[in-house]
């Protein structure tokens, strides 16, 4: 094939994926590395890439210490209870103590933050959320990243990390291809910050046909953060902790502002409050420590997101669906009505389109809610991602190996969805994590840890051949058949994605089985996953666009396999409402008050699983 090989050499900090985490990393790296070479490799265009492409109407993580509102440890406690105890509290504390400084800078850069006219503080949506006019959130942070980076390579799909050949387990850069020209790109770098985002479209979505792109997390969230890290042999944590979201039906419009600011609430088809009747049964599953409605009522301790999902799912299964969001009261106030619509236009336009198409005016009709298919990501109410070192002054020995946000591979850092155990970071927290990783990466270089890196031409050529294999495969076998997409020698990326989604759905607790699985199902699933891996070697791509889809699928596959192994390992039901282990339907704090850690051997593909201690922040 006539594609050129383009080598970018001498990079100090390579940022892979410039969404919220990656733009934060590129921006901050320049301050600590004023003479360093900072490069971004991004598969789309950083002006509108990632989960924030269409904007956001809220910043969901802001302490407001400036206004006397919260301390970092308050946020840690909140994330802890919301995730049923399973979080990395060192990383969370660290993120929370820095996050406000990112938000204050966003305001300076032009992001319109709303103010409370009475107090002068930022307009709160809830305890942690502030309201913004964030249609241009992404172009604004991209601008800051562009000013810092030496070069921005848009439209590069990064497929693999490069590994140093002089020292085992040390990163040496990354490779990928240009989605427009098809050229092969090699980035030789002393450090790499992976911020390539979480994973949608791993589970069969509720929508079918044309609507399959109407997923909650963006369809381009290809799990590349996980695929790249797992592929390089980095340890992962909490990959079983996928998220299911209660959202407006079909459009997946967010509900945060509706619950918190507009004070709308839910009821079943008979107009009854339904949540509380599920609490006694649920309390038996999870224990009073995690679900204590009276205490929650008294102290405003939140009821974990997953448990509220549990109530919704069970109410529907009991035949009292659909669940409605009661908007008719709030929407009588024209001001609140306007906010309700702006909230969608600012971050999920599709929901506005759907209501217009179906004549649902929430002023006169209470819209339906439903629970989504599961997603694998690590910055919302869930904590999938890499097992990373925390900061020196906070982390206990098991959580600390030298550099903040460094994975278990030397010189390889993570930010945003890539980092495990840090839920509730959201956009601002992801950006902050990027900044933290960038400072640590510069330190790592300054400490001389990146000396003597060697990458052979053999490694570069091997990856090249691997990258284009789906196109080669297509070329070889295409003419064996007359026409069409049915070929005994290959499957195309869409066919592979359909198979992956079906298998995750049925064996690993997707929506069609009401989020239920067990060890038998998971073991069958893992076997099928291996066979799918063999078939992915026979993936065929007709053109460069399909090659992009082929590599997204491979990253999704690696992510899914990790999710299955983790789900099998944790023999309990820690998050009812996200998924259920039918063979272990209770929270088991005696055996499983631990974080799960996995590693896939890059040579053999074998998984090893271990438990890591769960540390909590307590009063000294």
């Amino acid at each position, binding site marked *: 094939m006539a594609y050129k090989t383009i080598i970018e050499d001498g990079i100090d900090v390579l940022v892979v994926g410039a969404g919220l985490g990656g733009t934060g990393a590129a921006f901050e790296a320049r301050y600590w590395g004023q003479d360093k070479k900072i490069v971004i490799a991004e598969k789309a265009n950083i002006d509108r890439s990632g989960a924030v492409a269409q904007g956001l109407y809220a910043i969901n993580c802001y302490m407001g210490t400036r206004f006397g509102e919260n301390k970092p440890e308050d946020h840690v406690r909140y994330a802890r209870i919301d995730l049923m105890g399973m979080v990395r509290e060192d990383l969370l504390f660290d993120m929370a103590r820095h996050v406000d400084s990112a938000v204050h800078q966003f305001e300076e850069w*032009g992001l319109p933050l709303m103010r409370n006219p009475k107090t002068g503080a930022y307009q709160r949506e809830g305890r942690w959320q502030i309201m913004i006019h964030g249609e241009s959130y992404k172009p604004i942070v991209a601008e800051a990243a562009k000013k810092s980076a030496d070069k921005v390579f848009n439209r590069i799909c990064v497929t693999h990390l490069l590994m140093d050949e002089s020292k085992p387990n040390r990163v040496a850069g990354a490779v990928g291809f240009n989605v427009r020209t098809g050229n092969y790109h090699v980035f030789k770098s002393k450090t790499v910050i992976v911020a390539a985002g979480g994973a949608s479209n791993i589970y069969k979505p509720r929508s079918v046909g044309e609507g399959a792109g109407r997923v909650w997390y963006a369809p381009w969230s290809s799990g590349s953060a996980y695929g790249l890290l797992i592929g390089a042999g980095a340890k992962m944590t909490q990959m079983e902790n996928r998220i299911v979201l209660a959202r407006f039906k079909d459009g997946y419009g967010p509900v945060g502002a509706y619950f918190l600011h507009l004070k709308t609430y839910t009821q079943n088809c008979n107009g009854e409050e339904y949540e509380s009747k599920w609490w006694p049964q649920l309390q038996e599953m999870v224990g009073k420590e995690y679900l204590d409605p009276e205490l929650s009522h008294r102290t405003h301790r939140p009821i974990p997101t997953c448990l509220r999902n549990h109530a919704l799912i069970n109410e529907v299964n009991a035949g009292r669906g659909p669940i409605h969001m009661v908007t008719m009261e709030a929407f009588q106030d024209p001001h609140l009505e306007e906010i309700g619509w702006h909230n969608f236009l600012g971050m999920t336009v599709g929901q506005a389109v759907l209501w217009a198409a179906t004549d649902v005016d929430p002023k006169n009709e209470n819209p339906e809610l439903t629970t989504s298919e599961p997603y694998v990501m690590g910055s919302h109410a869930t904590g999938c991602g890499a097992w990373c070192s925390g900061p020196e002054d906070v982390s206990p020995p098991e959580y600390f190996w030298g550099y903040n946000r460094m994975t278990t591979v030397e010189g390889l850092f993570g930010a945003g969805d890539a980092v495990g155990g840090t839920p509730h970071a959201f956009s601002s927290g992801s950006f902050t994590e990027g900044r933290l990783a960038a400072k640590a990466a510069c330190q790592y270089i300054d400490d001389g840890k990146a000396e003597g890196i060697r990458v052979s031409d053999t490694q570069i050529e091997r990856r090249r051949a691997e990258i284009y294999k789906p196109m080669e495969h297509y070329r070889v076998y295409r003419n064996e058949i007359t026409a069409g997409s049915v070929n005994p020698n290959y499957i195309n990326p869409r066919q592979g994605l359909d198979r992956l989604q079906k298998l995750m759905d049925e064996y690993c607790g997707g929506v069609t089985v009401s989020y239920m699985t067990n060890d038998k199902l998971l073991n069958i699933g893992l076997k099928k996953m291996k066979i799918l891996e063999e078939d992915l070697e026979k993936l065929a791509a007709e053109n460069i666009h399909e090659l992009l889809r082929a590599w997204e699928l491979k990253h999704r596959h690696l992510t899914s396999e990790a999710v299955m192994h983790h789900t099998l390992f944790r023999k309990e039901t820690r998050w009812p409402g996200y998924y259920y282990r039918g063979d272990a339907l209770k929270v088991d704090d005696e055996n499983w008050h631990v974080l799960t850690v996995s590693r896939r051997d890059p040579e053999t593909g074998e998984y090893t699983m271990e438990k890591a201690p769960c540390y909590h922040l307590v009063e000294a």
Partner: protein
Amino acid sequence: MPTFVYMTRCDGCGQCVDICPSDIMHIDTTIRRAYNIEPNMCWECYSCVKACPHNAIDVRGYADFAPLGHSVRVRRDEEKGVIAWRIIFRNGEKDMNLLAPITTKPWGQCTPKLKDAPAPSKDMRDSQLLFNEPKYIRLDDGGLHTLESNGLKMQAGVCY
């Protein structure tokens, strides 16, 4: 709500191709105009709609659950720093105009150039601080929160 392109308005400039995060706006080689090559990977994020200089792109609700006959149009004006939406219901009974700011500053002028910022001191490098910190955390003279300052410690085991 995948996108489609009006034949008479598109001039094939490629702005939508350049911006689409899903890589699905492509120029058809025969008619030299843009179209959505993979509607089931479209997030109706409107990035292309906002970027098209000729308002040639529109959105038609996903066939599997959205009936025909609605309209959600947008005009994003960087110079004025505003975005204007118009939503028309299928039954024509609701027709809304909504306006929101997109920035409070002139484009691209207020993000700092860190190459030119005063270099961090050794003390700062050795600390836990980031650029502009501790000042920007609270906008007063307070320092960074630590376990010590907040009277905390990390403890292994079960805790709720």
